[in-house]
């Protein structure tokens, strides 16, 4: 099963929760942790894996054979992203605008276009303690992160895993949606503040649109006001966990500490949350199998 840790607002504690949840669950089953925030990946700062993100991730770009190209300009006209500019001679490619859709290759009457991979990021994977960890990193200056996110989510070469915890990028634009696609459950992390509530509503709208069951975790409970609670009650959204606002927790996170495996005061709360969540998502899956 795949559980995505997401949030509309950035900095609400997605990574902290994802890492600690994965570590807590790994005591009982095989767990994978996938860091899909490939623009600003942070899980590795907590887990400190011995491996780097080394394997290249590419996106296809067209290569035009100048010998065969008749400069007809069909490819440039067909490209919806203006990544090809018709010029006398072969068209000019603007690689950062290319979406790798394959239209130019398809429309070329001379079959002068083939495709090669252009590296836009790297991924790495391996064991960290009892966890399987997989992460990706978009190269700085690259605009489109979704191909790297897809590569992180591709577990075809990974060992067998019972439960996957996926750390999502913030927001509700295409990188977050790409991460959420195919999830069995989403945990939406928020703060009890006006910004937290506003962005939570966007995240709720997103997971409802994608038909993904979800619950909310309120981080830094006690700061701000009670409007997030009220919203969740009115919308019948389960509040799965409230993490109290605490300077020691904030300081532990600032150092990149993983505390769910320790005897820190907050650790047992997290372990209970982990087993409750596991049961909740398990029940949803069973229910889906039984229901037609």
């Amino acid at each position, binding site marked *: 099963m795949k559980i995505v840790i997401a949030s509309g607002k950035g900095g609400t504690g997605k990574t902290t929760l994802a890492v600690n949840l994965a570590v807590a669950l790994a005591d009982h089953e095989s767990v994978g942790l996938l860091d899909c925030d490939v623009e600003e990946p942070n899980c590795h700062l907590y887990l400190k894996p011995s491996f780097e993100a080394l394997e290249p991730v590419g996106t296809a770009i067209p290569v035009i054979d100048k010998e065969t190209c008749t400069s007809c300009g069909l490819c440039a006209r067909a490209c919806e992203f203006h990544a090809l500019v018709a010029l006398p001679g072969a068209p000019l490619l603007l690689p950062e605008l290319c979406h790798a859709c394959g239209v130019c290759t398809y429309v070329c009457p001379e079959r002068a276009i083939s495709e090669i991979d252009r590296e836009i990021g790297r991924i790495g994977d391996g064991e960290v303690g009892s966890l399987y960890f997989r992460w990706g990193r978009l190269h700085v200056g690259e605009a489109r992160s979704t191909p790297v996110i897809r590569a992180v989510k591709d577990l075809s070469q990974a060992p067998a895993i019972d439960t996957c915890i996926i750390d999502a990028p913030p927001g*509700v634009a295409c990188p977050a949606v790409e991460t959420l696609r195919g999830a069995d459950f989403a945990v939406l992390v928020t703060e009890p503040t006006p910004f937290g509530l506003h962005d939570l509503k966007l995240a709720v709208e997103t997971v409802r649109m994608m038909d993904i069951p979800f619950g909310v975790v309120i981080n830094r409970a006690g700061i701000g006001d009670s409007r997030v609670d009220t919203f969740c009650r009115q919308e019948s959204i389960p509040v799965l966990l409230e993490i109290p606002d605490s300077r020691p927790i904030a300081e532990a996170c600032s150092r990149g500490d993983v505390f769910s495996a320790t005897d820190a005061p907050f650790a047992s709360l997290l372990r209970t949350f982990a087993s409750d969540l596991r049961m909740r998502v398990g029940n949803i899956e069973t229910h889906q199998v039984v229901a037609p």
Partner: protein
Amino acid sequence: MTSAVVESARAQVDTESAPRQLVVLSGKGGTGKTSLVAALAALTTDKVLADCDVDAADLHLVLDPVRRHRESFVSGKEARIAPERCSACGLCQKYCRFEAVHLTRQSDGESVFMVDPIACEGCGLCMRVCPSGAVDMVEAERGEWFISDTRHGPLIHARLNIGGENSGKLVTLVRNQASALAAKVGADLVLVDGPPGIGCPVIASVTGAHLVLAITEPTVSGAHDLERAAQLVQGFHLPLAVCINKTDLNPHMAGCIRQICAAHDIPVAGELSYDTAVVRAQVEGKSIVEYGGSVVAEQIREMWDVLERLLRTVEA
């Protein structure tokens, strides 16, 4: 007398030249971009505000804008399959590289090919491969944008539809509208609230900036993400300054960030204390400067003096 002439000449140049753009971004989300922009909005006069975090815009929650103008953001296309013309051959699904075409079971039990508008990138390959001409490419409305009035000046803001493509284009639109409005009303500053990350909306936000202020926090994640954001900004040869928020949370990490800044020749424009008053101000719909009695407000005032000097240096 001479200096007055120089001053007036300078003023003339300033109003004629393009307004200065200060872009606040962070790499890591939730470090305090929007709270800082709201505070700077309260401190400065003669500026236009732009919220470029178009998929989770929050600046309006503090500024309480009154909308003056609304426009749809139409950008690119999306595919629609007309079921009456579809022969269900499945070629569109086979060719689509974005897994946007699905065989979907209808309530009447029939299965039809449909396009998932969130996954569709609008390339049109399905329309080209369809032997029955069943795919239409329609203009895609991907959000909306607004011109509003606030107590701290005009605000250009936007809302990207969920899963929206082309967020970079909407960001560029917001930025350009803000610049145009600033030129029109004679404002000499555009204050931009940027998105988190380093991807397309961030690249679109910093393009053309006179000064970028990256706000970070003294955490391992904050330091890591700042380095990547700095690499992006400096890669575009744009002037960059750093603000360390919650600097006393972890003095050791704050020191690491100062070292990173020194190593990359980035000035630290200011450091702000960890202060729960920032959240209390947000709850009341105020910026921290308007909330009063906070040490952070004073620190932001001091930082603004530094930023103004940096902006002048950039102009020179």
